[in-house]
C-alpha cells in the first residue's frame, strides 16, 4: 500500500479514535455529570450529551428536600435525541480527489502516477426511500492539474469537471453512514505543451461519469452550532470520454494568418480508479 494511502487511512482512523475518545469522556451511567441532566441510556457515546438542554421545569412540584440529588432524580427523565443528522437537508463539501493514472496516455501530461485535485459538492436531500435510507442529489465540481515533460520542456493538463451527482446514503448509526454515489457530467480539458519557440495548447470537452461508494463519519455540532461536520472516505471509478489532443500554436488562428493545424499527439481519457476525501457540512 502506498504511503499516501497509509496517511489517508491514518486520517480515517483518527476519526474513530476521536470518536472513541469522545465516548470515554461521556458520562458513565449513574455518574452525576450534571446536577439535573443524567445521560439517557440510549444516548450516543458522545460529548454531545452535555449539550442536551434539561427540561427541569416540566417536573411535577415536590416538597422541598434536604437532598436535592434525590429530588432531582425523581424528576421525569427528558427524552434525549441526538442532533439528528438524519434530518440533514443540505450538504456542502470540500472534496480532495486522487485519481490513479493507470492509462499510459496520461504520462504525457503527468510526471506522477496519480493526480490530486480539489473541488466542491452541493447536495440536497430529495427523498427518504426507507427508514435510514435517503437519496440526495446535487452538483459536483472538480479541478485537476498535472504537469509532465517532453522534448522541449514542460507539458500540462488542467481539467474542470462539472457533474450532476446522486448519493444513496444509509444511516447505519447516526455517526456512520455508508453511501454510494453516481455522477454524470462533462469534463473540460486544457492541454499545454512548451515548444521550441512557441507554446502549443488545446482544449476539449469530454463526457464524464463516475461510480463510487464510501463511508461517512458524522460529528455532531458542539454547543448550539446549527451545522454538523462529516468526513467521507470514498473510492470508485471515474471515466472520461476519449478526446484527440491536437495542440496548436497560440495565436495561429487569428485573421490574416495561414490556418495552422496542430499535431495529433494522441487521445486522452479512459477509466481510472479514484479516491475521494470529502469534508462536509450538514444543515
Amino acid at each position: 500500500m502506498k504511503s499516501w494511502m497509509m496517511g489517508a487511512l491514518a486520517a480515517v482512523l483518527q476519526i474513530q479514535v476521536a470518536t472513541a475518545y469522545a465516548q470515554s469522556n461521556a458520562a458513565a451511567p449513574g455518574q452525576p455529570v450534571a446536577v439535573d441532566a443524567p445521560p439517557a441510556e440510549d444516548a450516543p457515546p458522545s460529548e454531545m450529551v452535555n449539550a442536551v438542554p434539561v427540561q427541569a421545569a416540566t417536573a411535577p412540584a415536590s416538597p422541598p428536600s434536604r437532598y436535592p440529588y434525590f429530588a432531582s432524580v425523581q424528576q421525569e427523565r427528558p427524552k434525549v435525541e441526538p442532533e439528528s443528522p438524519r434530518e440533514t437537508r443540505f450538504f456542502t463539501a470540500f472534496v480532495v480527489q486522487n485519481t490513479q493514472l493507470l492509462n499510459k496516455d496520461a504520462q504525457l501530461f503527468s510526471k506522477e502516477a496519480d493526480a490530486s485535485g480539489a473541488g466542491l459538492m452541493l447536495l440536497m436531500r430529495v427523498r427518504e426511500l426507507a427508514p435510514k435510507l435517503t437519496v440526495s442529489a446535487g452538483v459536483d465540481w472538480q479541478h485537476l492539474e498535472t504537469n509532465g515533460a517532453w522534448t522541449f520542456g514542460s507539458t500540462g493538463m488542467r481539467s474542470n469537471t462539472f457533474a450532476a451527482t446522486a448519493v444513496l446514503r444509509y444511516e447505519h448509526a447516526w455517526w456512520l453512514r455508508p453511501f454510494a454515489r453516481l455522477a454524470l457530467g462533462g469534463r473540460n480539458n486544457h492541454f499545454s505543451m512548451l515548444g521550441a519557440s512557441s507554446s502549443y495548447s488545446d482544449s476539449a470537452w469530454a463526457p464524464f461519469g463516475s461510480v463510487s461508494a464510501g463511508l461517512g463519519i458524522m460529528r455532531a455540532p458542539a454547543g448550539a452550532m446549527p451545522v454538523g461536520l462529516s468526513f467521507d472516505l470514498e473510492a470508485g471509478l471515474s471515466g472520461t470520454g476519449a478526446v484527440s489532443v491536437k495542440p496548436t500554436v497560440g495565436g495561429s488562428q487569428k485573421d490574416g494568418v495561414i490556418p495552422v493545424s496542430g499535431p495529433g499527439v494522441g487521445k486522452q481519457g479512459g477509466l481510472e480508479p479514484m479516491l475521494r476525501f470529502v469534508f462536509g457540512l450538514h444543515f
Partner: protein
Amino acid sequence: MKRLLISLLASGALLGACDWKEGRTPPTPGIEPGVGSAVVLPSALAFVEQSVGFVHLVDAPGGLPRARAVEIGRNPVAWQADRAALANTATDRLLVLCVGEIDGPGVDPEGASLWLVPAAAGTAPQKYDLPSRWNRITQSPSGRHVILSFQPGGPSKLVSDSVFSPNQIAVLDLNTPGAMLDVRTLRALNDIPRDFFFSPTLSLPEGPRDLLVVASDAYVTLVDLNNPKRSEITVPLSLADDPRRLRAAQVLFDPGAPEDPSTMLPRRDPVVYLRASGSSDIIALSLTPVPAAEPMVGKSDFLPSLSQLAVGIEPKDMVLYPELEPVVGQADKKVLRMRLLVSNGSAQLVVLHLDTSRTLTIPMVHSADRILTWNGPSPDETEVRPRALLFNTQGGGKATFVDLNRLSDLKTRNLTPIDLAPVNDVLPLYDLGLVFVQHGGSRLSVLNLASRTLSSLNFALSFGSIRKPPGQNGLWVVGSNADNKGRFPLPQLNPSNLSTSEARLDARSDELVLLPAAPGAKAWMLVAHPGADGYVTALDAATPDRASAHSLRGIVAVDLQERLSRVLPGEKQ
C-alpha cells in the same frame, strides 16, 4: 480535528513525493532537441529527430499537411534521400545511419544500424545491423551502392566505441535484395579514406563492372564494387621521396570500349583521370588487363598503369568529352576519341588528346576555374554537339562559351566570350537549356545556353538559393527575408519565359517539394520552414497563394503519446 488535518496534509505530502519516472535521464548530450532541416524526397518531406531517433514524414493529402513518425535507431548521425529515389518515386526513401547507444546509467546499449525508411505509408523501414559505428554515408550517383565510413574527423562524438578502425568501410548494394554488407578494411599508407568517387560501368577485362576510388592523402584505393572477395588496389600518387601529399580532388572515368571489328580498332582500356590538389599534372590510371599467366585468386583482373599529363599550372577543373575523328584510311568511318578539357585558373584553356598525349593550349580573354559541359545547339549551329561554358568563381566579369567539336582545329574561333557579373553560385538546368547564376544576395542571371543570351532578375529582398523540386519545371527561390508586412515571399520563376509570381507565407522557406498527384487531381506542394519543432505549409501547386495554404506546426509532437518512452529516454517503469 487538528490531528485529522495533520494526517491528511502528511498523506498529501507523501502522495506528491511519489514519482513513477524516477529513472528519467535527459537525451544524449550534444544533440539539439527537435528536428533539423527538411530532406526533400520525391513524395514527401522528411525530418530527422536526432535526439530521440525518429523520422517524421510529411505529405499533404487534399492540401492538409499530415505527418507520421517512423522509429529508427538511436542517435542518427547521417541521412540523405536515396539518390535512386530522386528519379523513381517507386523507391522513394530516406537513408539514415544511426550509431546506436552504448551502455550507461538508465540507457540500454544498442548497436549501430542503417535504415532505409520508405516515404510511402504502410511500408516498414528496412534495417541493416552494422558491426561498426560508422558516421558517414556516401551513395553512388546511380543510387546503387552505399558506402559507410568514418568521417575524417573520427567517429561520432555522440557515441563511439573505445577502439575503431578508421580504414574500415562497408559497401551495400541496394539493387540486390537481401544483399549482405561487404565490410572491408582498406590497406592504409599512413592515412584514412577521405573522399569516395564512383565510376560508371567500366569495360574491364572480365566484363563490365563498377569501381570505387577512395581518395586519401598521397594515394588512392581502387575497390571492385561487384566482387567483394577481391582485394583492393592501392596506388600511391607520388614517389617515395616526394614530400608532397597529393590528394585526389576530382576523378573522371573513361569507361573504355571493347574491340570494335567494324573499325578494326583495338580494345580501349578504361582510364581513371585524377586531378590532385598540389599537383600541376593530371594523373591517369589506365586499367590494363592482368597477363593471363599471373594467378588471379583474390586479385583483380586489371592493373592500374600510372602516367602523368602535364598541363602547366595546377588544374582547377576538368571535363572529359568525346570527339569523332575519321579513321585513317577509312574516310567514311569515324572513331570516338576522348579529350580532356582543363581549366587551370589562368586565361588559358588546355585540351589534352588522350589517345596521342598531345596538349593544346588556347588563350582566353579571362581566367576560369570552373567548367560546365552539355550537349546542345548553339546560335550558329542547330546540331546537338558537346559544348562548354568556362567562368571564374573567384571574381571576374566574363564567361566563355566553347564549342568542343573540332576545338583543336578551330581553336579561338570556337570561343565566344560574354560579359557576366561575378559568380557566387550556379544552378545548371541542362534539360531546360538554362543556367541560373547567382551573383549576390539579391541578383540573379539566367543564361540561355542555346541562344547565349543573358537575362537578369533583381530581387527586392535578399534570398537564399534556388530550388527545382523533383518532377517540376518551375523554379523557386527560397530563403527570402521578411517584407515590411512581416511576410516571407516565395517567388516562382517560369524558366520558359522567365515570368515570375510569388506566394507570401508566414515564415521563411527552407525547402519545397511538389507532391505527386493522381491524374486529374489537384497537385499540392509542401514548403518546409525552419524550426526545431517542425513546420510546413501546403500550397496549391497550380496557384500557390495564401488562400489555398494550410500549415502544420509541431511535427515532432505527432503521435507523441505512443512514442513517449523514446522521447523520454531512461524512463524506468
